[in-house]
């Protein structure tokens, strides 16, 4: 087999995707990142020029949820081509080779693609018991991750476990599990893509951006791309109007629930969760958790298994409710008289306007003790 230069247009043509479709897709990616319209063509041009970079996907203390998410990529032909635009040289759940031959594939990618490699890590990295809580081919997760990250041009911690430790790191963290950033301090070019699992639409967009610009899009302090984590669920929620109007679900299956009222009183963590779920939605934009009638559990936030639980206890004292922070009273008032609820809503608006970025932490501390 001879190695040949590969171009995306050929790949797309083979898949029956027209150039117009591709540019349209890139324009939508551009819009996604809030880039000017012309950037669509720019991205398309840059992606088409790039060679097929090698990607290795490592799984540690994971559930393969992010891998499954990957298999649900929508915009099938284009996204598939984009994913094919990457040579997926190691992925245990998908790859044909096993055992020594699988390890050899990883070694080859690390050696030949050193410095150019993209590394995706799914799952937390346990540091207890000398690394014995997770081994692959007899090597510890930490050893494998270190080797790979050393050779990487960019590292994506996909899902909340890889980004922040997630479920294995929930109290009392029996295996001393850590997210990638903590387990391997000083990784350059790390981007966190939390959520449980991460939404594949965000992963696809992130990869396209990287292929085009050879760098990550702007990140927040937690190294999450702003395009997907810049706003809270609450900010873009389709049920926001009901929140503002003081219309809440009071019991599962009640009239408010069937009508699509706000799930705040049922424990929704949308107000303190940064993620673009309401906009991108899931499974080819079919639905999303709040859309199906269940509160947000805050799965994209660090430590959510501890900070957001109990899941069905509503948040208290989030900015906006301010002094009238007892949602039970406001809700009761809403039943009796909408006017009172609107008074509460007025406070919400004032609170939100006065909120500054640095107050996010205070916001989370506001959870009911």
């Amino acid at each position: 087999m001879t190695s040949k230069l590969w171009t995306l247009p050929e790949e797309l043509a083979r898949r029956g995707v027209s150039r117009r479709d591709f540019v349209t897709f890139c324009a939508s990616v551009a819009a996604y990142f809030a880039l000017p319209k012309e950037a669509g063509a720019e991205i398309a041009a840059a992606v088409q020029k790039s060679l097929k970079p090698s990607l290795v996907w490592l799984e540690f203390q994971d559930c393969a949820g992010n891998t499954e998410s990957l298999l649900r990529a929508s915009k099938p032909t284009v996204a598939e081509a984009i994913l094919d635009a990457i040579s997926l040289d190691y992925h245990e759940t998908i790859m044909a080779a096993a055992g020594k031959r699988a390890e050899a594939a990883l070694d080859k990618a690390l050696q030949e693609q050193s410095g150019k490699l993209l590394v995706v890590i799914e799952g937390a990295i346990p540091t207890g018991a000398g690394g014995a809580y997770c081994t692959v081919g007899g090597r510890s997760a930490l050893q494998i991750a270190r080797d790979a990250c050393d050779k990487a041009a960019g590292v994506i911690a996909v899902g909340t476990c890889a980004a922040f430790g997630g479920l294995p790191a929930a109290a009392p963290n029996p295996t001393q599990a850590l997210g990638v950033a903590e387990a391997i301090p000083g990784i350059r070019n790390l981007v966190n893509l939390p959520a449980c699992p991460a939404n594949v639409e965000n992963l696809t967009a992130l990869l396209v951006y990287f292929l085009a610009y050879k760098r990550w899009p702007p990140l927040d302090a937690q190294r999450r791309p702003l395009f997907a984590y810049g706003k809270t669920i609450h900010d873009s929620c389709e049920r926001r109007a009901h929140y503002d109007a003081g219309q809440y679900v009071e019991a599962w299956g009640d009239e408010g629930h069937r009508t699509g009222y706000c799930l705040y009183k049922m424990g929704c963590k949308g107000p303190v969760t940064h993620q673009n779920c309401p906009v991108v939605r899931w499974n080819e934009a079919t639905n999303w958790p709040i859309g199906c009638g269940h509160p947000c559990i805050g799965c994209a936030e660090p430590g959510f298994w501890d900070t957001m639980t109990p899941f069905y206890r509503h948040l208290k004292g989030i900015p906006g409710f301010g002094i009238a922070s007892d949602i039970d009273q406001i809700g009761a008032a809403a039943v009796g008289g909408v006017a009172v609820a609107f008074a509460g809503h007025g406070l919400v608006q004032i609170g939100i306007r006065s909120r500054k970025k640095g107050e996010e932490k205070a916001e989370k501390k506001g959870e009911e003790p």
Partner: protein
Amino acid sequence: MTHVVVDPVTRIEGHLRIEAEVDGGVVKDAWSSSTMFRGIEIILKGRDPRDAWAFTQRICGVCTTVHAIASVRAVENAIGAKPPPNARILRNLIMASQMVQDHVVHFYHLHALDWVDVVSALSADPAKASSLAESISDWPLSSTKYFAGVRDRLKAFVDRGQLGPFANAYWGHPAYRLPPEANLMAVAHYLEALDFQREFIRLHAVLGGKNPHLQSFLVGGMATPIDPNQQASINVGTIAQLKELIAKARDFVARVYLPDVLAVASFYKDWAGHGAGVGNYLVYGEYPEDDGANPSLFLPSGVIWNRDISKIEAFDPAKITEYVTHSWYEYAGGDAKGLHPSQGETSPKYSGPQPPFERLDTSAKYSWLKSPRYGDKPMEVGPLARMLVAYGRGHSRVKALVGDVLGKLGVGPEALFSTLGRIAARAVETMVLAEKMGTWVDALADNMGRGELRIHDNDKWDPSSWPADATGAGFHEAPRGALGHWVHVKDGAIANYQCIVPSTWNAGPRDASGQRGPYEAALLETPVADAEQPLEILRTVHSFDPCMACGVHVVDPLRREVVRVRAR
């Protein structure tokens, strides 16, 4: 004697290591080891039992519904919550669609490459592939042009020199036996199945907000409201959407998956003589058809001993025990005794080699899996167990389909107890469920029409309505087999939580008396043509559909106080 290590076993969920002794071209002994541990049951202690489903759901992102279901059932059983009929129907739909999607993905994306040589497909004659495809099914994507297109696409991929996930496999291995045209057809369906699974699982987004990790489960019911006239509820439009998705699944399974299984199996009939395993089968049963305390189940429960399907014994949960003799845990009363899960205790205690290591000491402890036993015997769980019990109990549709498959392959029922039998049983089960699902949608529509809109037992939502001290168990048939969760709820919080999951039953290590687990037993006498390329070992292990993240769990030790640290 050659010592073979396969680690990582790929195309599975999670981390599995197989060590085997190969002599004279066959496996003489084998050890199954799980190499990852998280401790989810320890993490659950002290938490709100209504949250437990979300924690346990993350045990596995592949079978993403199963631990949520088992968890809500266990807690409901403990606190006395009674989900209304709509919740039962919604759960049946969610469970069955998980099964259908998971089985299709297993066959095409996790297992097929053990039987299908991708490189051989390059030399296929598209016209012959077309005739082959048309001889086994009336599936429309079968023209010469179509297969030529797939072959060219594959060729371009290979020519590029970057084989990605197909690199470095055992292509050309003598154990591959399909003609190039059958390989090409299988590659085409591998790609089609990728599209199918993504499309079909939208059903989970409809009923659960998203997949993986649907989010509509509740202790006491479901969170998806039902109202024929509301946009924010499951309404008449949803009914139509569900029907369409299910019809497509039925079509794909009947016209692609099942015919492919028969076509591939016809070239590998000798694999009906390999991989038999322990010969005992355990099924908890699934798909309640009514809301009584002991509902009738669409797929029945039962126990089979020594491959005797003429006698199906009733399942008794009291007969379950777990051993840690060869697992990296310790019991307070010594590791030689098995404990019932409701009395279970475990502390993780790693005693294996420090990584990096070459070999495990399999005479000592060698896995993060425990060894569950039923009546002190190792049991196989999964689609084969379910189909055997249903067959033995006279399930008419299962009997008809199993008979059909055996007839087409020209083999007797004894062929079922094998590697090939597992593959066939999985396909039959997929068909039976894809056919069945529509009746649940009808039942849902019927309830809606009668104004029966309840989705939840609100009376048992508030912890003040619960007994101060209660225990419960939740049983479920997951794609990979019998799954049980046991919970102890005390003063509104979880005092103890444990799971015994399908891959623990199947992939567990030896017990105190040295009895091998089902994987280990099934690998005995498996032929291995080339110890450097143990393709045949993968065939038998993959036939169980391993799900290792599911398999590893730890029961909270009674004597260990876990201090709950909560970030504020």
